């Protein structure tokens, strides 16, 4: 009987009796008001630093859609002559501190459209062009029963305007070297994307596949000047394949890091020569952006302002709470 009782008896441990030792914090004034003060001051500090940093970033934007208020490249906007080359000129009065980054930006362009988004085949892009491309690539899956490589809407709609920048020095155009290396993620270039492997040239590897409908050249001829920048590993292609989050987006085109321009673009007149191929005027706009970056990336005032606002709010709130406490709480405690 005794042992049976013992067997029935529940374990008398702190856990089973719900008496585990515990820390019992409370959101009391003693704790919250100083907390708010601290957070407020810290945030204002961070905010000011961010804001100042952001103010020091230089940005130069040039819309070259060719329609509407910006007239640059209007001669090419109707897309009649192919290729159509137009020039955008601008002048700098101060040094545009380097390294300078060249972006192209599209607006009202839905790279995040669901059907568009999935219209790719990551297995193919990992170097397997022999298998049939995934159904998600439709309608850019096959041409004449030959698989398209790279298949899908994303690849098909790859941005194909090209830019070259010249500084006008005494009436002559001096080419500003643009660096196309490392504009895509390191992991995309080295791991996630792979060219198909075959004996012989890259062209052989792509044998039996078709180029995307909109492309003028097949994948293995994207960059004739650098053999390693072709196929699925073309940097511009990689950048394009990382689909943008929002309908207005920028993508990195080139860096200006070498030669005379390593420290930045000196004051002077510049010409940006654009090969105008990409049609956006029906739904949106395109632009080119020069910008330099700091540790916090490109120019973005939001973060700094938000930090300052939230910090100030915290300070105000701590004062409000102090008043409330002085009025109610302490009276209450004395009672």
């Amino acid at each position, binding site marked *: 009987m005794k042992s049976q009782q013992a067997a029935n008896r529940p374990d008398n441990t702190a856990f089973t009796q719900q008496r585990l030792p515990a820390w019992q914090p409370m959101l009391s004034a003693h704790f919250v008001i100083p907390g708010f003060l601290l957070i407020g001051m810290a945030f204002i500090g*961070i905010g000011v630093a961010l804001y100042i940093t952001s103010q020091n970033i230089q940005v130069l934007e040039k819309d070259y859609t060719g329609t509407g208020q910006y007239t640059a490249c209007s001669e090419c906007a109707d897309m009649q002559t192919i290729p159509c080359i137009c020039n955008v000129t601008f002048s700098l009065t101060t040094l545009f501190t380097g390294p300078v980054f060249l972006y192209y930006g599209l607006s009202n362009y839905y790279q995040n459209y669901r059907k568009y988004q999935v219209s790719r085949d990551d297995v193919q892009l990992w170097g397997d062009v022999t298998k049939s491309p995934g159904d998600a690539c439709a309608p850019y899956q096959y041409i004449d029963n030959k698989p398209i490589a790279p298949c899908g809407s994303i690849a098909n709609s790859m941005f194909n305007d090209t830019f070259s920048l010249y500084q006008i020095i005494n009436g002559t155009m001096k080419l500003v070297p643009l660096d196309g290396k490392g504009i895509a993620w390191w992991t995309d270039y080295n791991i996630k994307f792979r060219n198909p492997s075959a004996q012989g040239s890259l062209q052989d590897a792509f044998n039996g596949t078709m180029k995307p409908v909109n492309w003028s050249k097949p994948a293995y001829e994207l960059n004739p000047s650098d053999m390693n920048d072709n196929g699925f590993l073309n940097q511009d292609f990689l950048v394009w394949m990382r689909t943008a989050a929002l309908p207005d987006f920028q*993508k990195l085109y080139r860096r200006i890091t070498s030669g005379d321009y390593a420290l930045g673009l000196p004051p002077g007149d510049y010409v940006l020569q654009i090969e105008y191929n990409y049609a956006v005027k029906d739904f949106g706009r395109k632009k080119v952006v020069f910008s330099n970056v700091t540790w*916090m990336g490109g120019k973005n005032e939001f973060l700094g302002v938000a930090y300052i606002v939230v910090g100030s709010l915290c300070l105000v709130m701590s004062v409000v709470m102090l008043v409330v406490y002085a009025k109610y709480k302490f009276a209450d405690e004395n009672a």
Partner: protein
Amino acid sequence: MDFSALRNLISRYCTGEENWVDSRTVYIGQREPPPGTEAYIPQRFPDNRIVSSKYTFWNFVPKNLFEQFRRVANFYFLIIFLVQLIIDTPTSPVTSGLPLFFVITVTAIKQGYEDWLRHKADNAVNQCPVHIIQHGKVVRKQSRKLRVGDIVLVKEDETFPSDLILLSTSRDDGTCFVTTASLDGESSHKTYYAVQDTKSFNTEKEVDMLRATIECEQPQPDLYKFVGRINIYQDRDEPIARPLGSENLLLRGATLKNTEFVYAVAIYTGMESKMALNYQSKSQKRSAVEKSMNAFLVVYLCILISKALINTTLKYVWQADPNRDEPWYNGKTDHERQRHVMIRAFTDFLAFMVLFNYIIPVSMYVTVEMQKFLGSYFITWDDEMFDEELGEGALVNTSDLNEELGQVEYVFTDKTGTLTENNMEFIECCVDGHVYVPHAICNGQILSGSSGIDMIDSSPGPDGKEREELFFRALCLCHTVQVKEEETVDGIKRGIHQGKATSFYISSSPDEVALVEGMKRLGFTYLRLKDNHMEILNREDEVERFELLEVLNFDSVRRRMSVIVRSSSGHLYLFCKGADSSIFPRVISGKVDRVRARVEHNAVEGLRTLCVAYKALSQEEYHNVCQLLDSAKLALQDRDRKLAEAYDLIERDLILLGATAVEDRLQEKAADTIESLHKAGMKVWVLTGDKMETAAATCYASKLFRRSTQILELTTKRTEEQSLHDVLFELGRTVLRQHGSLTHDTFSGLSGEFQDYGLIIDGATLSAVMKPAQDDSSGNYKEIFLEICRNCSAVLCCRMAPLQKAQIVKLIKASKEHPITLAVGDGANDVSMILEAHVGIGIMGKEGRQAARNSDYAIPKFKHLKKMLLVHGHYYYIRIAELVQYFFYKNVCFIFPQFLYQFFCGFSQQPLYDTAYLTLYNISFTSLPILLYSLIEQHVSMDILKRDPSLYRDIAKNCLLRWRIFIYWTFLGLFDSMVFFFGAYFLFDNTTFTSNGQIFGNWTFGTLVFTVLVFTVTLKLALDTHYWTWINHFVVWGSLLFYVVFSLLWGGVIWPFLNYQRMYYVFVQMLSSGPAWLGIGLLVIISLLPDVLKKVLCRALWPTSTERIQNVEKLYQSHLSEFTPLPLLNSSLPDFEAHNINPRRSGHRSKELMYTHWRGTTGYCTFSSTLGPPGIGRTHRLVGLETSV
């Protein structure tokens, strides 16, 4: 139960309504009657199996699936899953199919296990052996094989296996004694009678020779009604027919007592026995929280559908421009172009539904299930609810109702065995103001108080001595107790005990037994009634013989009984015993004042008091009495009235001898428990099958009725005088006059300023009240009754049949506030109310396990109810309330950004988060912290909850799940999700935020939002946690860490089984950027700020008493001593007065007294000497039961 119902239905249809028989014919011993009798109608009866289980092996899967998919949520998930299978959706079917499968399986396993336990219990009952007479021999069979018509042999202390007609007993007179304690709660012995023609049968052979049929009505649930006829065939003669009534019917569940054996024939078996018919079918109980949850679910479903509709509409408005519908870069396939626009729109709608379906979290149901299941272990583990005596702790039969324990508004409790120990004890008697306490208990350890308490040893003088002995003789003679002397039954086995015959007293009134036993301890032993002479053994061990001349039986109107005896010396005496109110007016001499004082004192203590008076009769007077009685007895009309008149004439001009006090001992701490429940705002109703007087005394003892309580009576006695209509309206006026001018605070009774009402109603009146109205004028009896009840702090319902108990519960449940009810009981008679109430609690009592088995929770003692409700119930409620609100909140936070994202992705159903995040968000990233919170959160400590029951009111009426709070949480969720989404939006605004100028894509955007989301909702929970054990730390920080590690891993490897690698290195790239870190920190803090602010301000400006207690607890933690009543520390508690209910005793004092009083047997003689100052409450009301308005 389903079975018999189904069978009835089928047979009804098969035979056609006309052929449906109202009676059944039972062939005793399964033998057909001799030919030539009435047409032989074969009838099929169910076997004797009791089925309380829900499923069988075969129907488990379909039935369980059906039941589960009847739940709105499960059905909804099923639909979503099917939609995902059929159409092209943004997310994989696995994301909803897997969790659904998991939920269904877990629930099915749980329910299957519970049903298996029920099967086991059923089998134990169905397989216990019974003895059946077959072919003149006793055969042992399993109980379930017993058939209608079988003759059964039942031995002493065995329980009847089915409803039986008594054929013969071991006693010569064909009677047997039965206790129906487990059926209707009456533990007294009742006498049943064998059929006249068969009572002489004494052996199996004889019984087996019997050829007879029984015709009786079809089974019906009324325990006290039975009509039948037995036809006995002897030789070739016409059968002898004898009527059968309920006095011949032994009910299943009752126990044979004091009778060696009986032979009886089974007529109602299995689920048709009256006990089983008094069960109610087990329906699944839903807690109030679950109902709120379902309501919220519907709201969210509406939100979901409107979200999908809005998005679908906007999508088609937006893409009216062909450049948006199909821009050149995003070509459609021919197949897609050819689809009809309506089909496309419908598919889009479904796709949006699927995309947003996570707003109704499938995992909430899993988590709630798990919380309930695991949480219920804390009840079974609770050491404080472990009973040493029984060797058992609390049991949880249904874990679905844990939180309902924190919501109880009405407590319906059985009396016998639940409140009381069902054990009468003679406490004291008082002769002319001298108090006598039985030696055997006290051994002279009386603590004399201020009033004159004498001991038996102090001799009150020769005159007093005579009176004293007369008093004792009166008690020994004036009763209807039977003596069962073991000697006469079985001389050898036992009975000779220390040279004296051991005898047992049996009576229909346990009080009388207690009195006679008490007298025995005081030296006067009632021996027997022999040849109409009562024999008493007095103190000098001499036998005194009194001739019993007349017995004027007890009835509840007179409330007294008398005997007329002739002593051996030839003197004639009338001894009268009765309730004080019926004795005092008839007394002409004696020390009335002193006795009255004592009676009042005892009544206050909750003892059951009786007064004793006598009168000496001359021969002439006796002659008159005889004439009076005879003429009344012989009257053919109005016999009852004439008898009453005669009694009234006889019982007058009495001389008061003294008073007695008997205690139906309350269970340990029963009064304390009831007091706590009252303070916690619950209304306690006592529902008992017992007599009104007995029950009322218990109510006084258990502090349910107080001295100041004004008792309203709604009993047969009163309705005989006035019409029910008048009584009801009068009571209604009385109550409403008081409360009309006051606020509708039902707890007001305790503030002491105005009247506190208690209602007593009996079963007969109740059924009159409940009867559906015939005409409009009386149509709202129920309403008036409910209104009266609402304004009474305590209600006592006596003489209740089991189903009536359930009816009461149902009535309250259905009243307009829809209060949460709890029923607690220990016997089979309580099962129906236990099943009916929202929460049913069984006491593991002496009367078997029926109640415990059918209850939702079983506890060893009534006192455990306190911890069960005040601590466990409270905790479970706040835990699950937070769980539910938090779940909806975190899923709003989760899904609303995705909704907002649709505006920026052309309404294309693009998911914001990766599939892994979508699936795992609820399953692993945010599930464990809330689960563990909902298992171990303690917002205030256990001791405080127990010490301060009023905290229970802070959570009354489901207040943490009110719409206001739900909307607050929802808006908080909306605000937070806006912060997440637009914060990330502006951060991503057309720029890079890495130092190498590279650009992030849409998956980084989603991951950023998701990271902020996971951190915010987890930290929000951390802010809500008041009780940080190491487990909480482990789980909260562990979950966040797990999220980070998982993201690193998920993005760190090219997963070969995936056909997309969109998350590859996204997380690491994001973390490599400084602004991402700063942004996450900023957004998390912005999201949490308003909630922190709200908490701090509310706590300061409008604190609930729980929050006050928390503050106080914090401030005074070190000063708190064990016995300081907590409200004293904070005088601003609204119901501080409630603590000192008794204005004469401080709270501290009353506690002390209570303890000494209930500590146990040694505490008996501790009298509380505080008879308060005269005048206060010394009205006639005090006497207790007698009062009516």
